[in-house]
């Protein structure tokens, strides 16, 4: 239902939630899980999204990516059920499950919890290959820089967990403010002839009021988005410079799918991030499932 017109000549649809991204699940039809020796799972309960991954003998078999609700145990269970859907498996068939992420203590069916920093390094090593040395994980509510070795073992990390600047939550706020679907923000932010000065504050609340001011000055949406994306990329680049950047460089987490941020990071740091056919948002859950496999094999050896 179209109810009103906005100042930019576009229609705003009443009740549309621009921040809401599409949830999805996936399964590899070529793998028969019944033949697998080890069936392990990783559940990454983030502050904004939850991913559940199932691996057969260390190979990606199925996963689901959903929104984390207010009830973390429920989100974990729902994501897991969705990943298991149409696989012929039930939760009881999983040999070992590791919980990770912000809500990792709230995964009721996990045998063990592991910090998401270790899991993201391990997962990035899996999806981007062993040449990855610096991983930038841009999550829903915090942002981390992780250095790792060729085995995906953490060698240093830096986490900005004080503030939501430079994170998915900030992007959601801007999607809503500008009525731009969150998946299209990055591309739209690149539709400017010239980069505008970045918003002076990366604090989401301050940046939001600054953006409102810019809109009143008559800036088009793309220009406001460019100013915000540039500020966010700059904030993250500072974090990377602080820990020191060693190539190869890779980005994980939801914001790695935002080309506006990736392009500006490339420009500011003069690096080429690795690309992959895997979904970079499930790196943490993949890492957890790989740790689950290692722990399961160790447990079997001990028995």
């Amino acid at each position, binding site marked *: 239902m179209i109810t009103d017109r906005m100042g930019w000549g576009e229609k705003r649809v009443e009740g549309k939630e621009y921040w809401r991204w599409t949830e999805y699940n996936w399964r590899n039809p070529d793998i028969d899980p019944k033949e697998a020796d080890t069936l392990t799972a990783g559940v990454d309960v983030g502050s904004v999204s939850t991913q559940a991954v199932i691996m057969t003998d260390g190979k990606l078999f199925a996963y689901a990516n959903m929104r984390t609700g207010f009830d973390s145990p429920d989100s974990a269970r729902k994501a897991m059920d969705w990943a298991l859907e149409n696989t012929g498996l039930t939760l009881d068939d999983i040999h070992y499950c590791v919980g990770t992420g912000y809500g990792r203590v709230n995964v009721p069916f996990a045998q063990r919890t592991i910090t998401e920093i270790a899991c993201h390094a391990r997962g990035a090593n899996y999806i981007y290959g062993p040449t990855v040395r610096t991983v930038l994980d841009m999550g829903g509510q915090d942002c981390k820089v992780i250095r790792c070795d060729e085995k995906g073992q953490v060698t240093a990390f*830096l986490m900005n*967990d004080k503030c939501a600047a430079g994170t998915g939550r900030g992007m959601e706020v801007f999607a809503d403010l500008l009525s731009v679907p969150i998946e299209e923000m990055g591309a739209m932010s690149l539709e400017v002839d010239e980069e505008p000065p970045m918003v002076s504050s990366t604090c989401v609340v301050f940046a939001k009021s600054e953006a409102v001011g810019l809109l009143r000055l008559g800036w088009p949406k793309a220009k406001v988005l460019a100013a915000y994306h540039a500020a966010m990329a700059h904030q993250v680049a*500072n974090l990377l410079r602080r820990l020191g950047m060693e190539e190869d460089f890779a980005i994980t987490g939801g914001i790695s799918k935002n080309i506006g941020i990736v392009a500006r990071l490339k420009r500011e740091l003069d690096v080429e991030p690795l690309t992959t056919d895997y979904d970079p948002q499930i790196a943490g859950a993949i890492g957890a499932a790989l740790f689950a496999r*290692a722990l399961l094999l160790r447990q079997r050896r001990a028995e």
Partner: protein
Amino acid sequence: MGYIAHYGYTDGSGDWYISIDTELCNGCGECVTACPVGLLQLVEDEYNPLSDELKASVKPEHRKTIKYDCGPCKPVTDRPPLPCVEACKPGAISHSW
């Protein structure tokens, strides 16, 4: 294989990090008792889950407030050596400010 763990945050007023070099940290726990605020702890190596060693780390409840929690040991003038840094014989602990 060790790594360097930075606990803390960057905010509008600067960088506030305690860094622990786990290559050097031997898990002796001297820093835990030396810290007057009790913000350090010995835990299973969180970032290397397949290892069984214990390592010093900043307690999670202090990680977002260390600028203030470390304040008592950091007067503006006449700053004595930090108890945690002094207690750590291998020299694994450093502060960013």
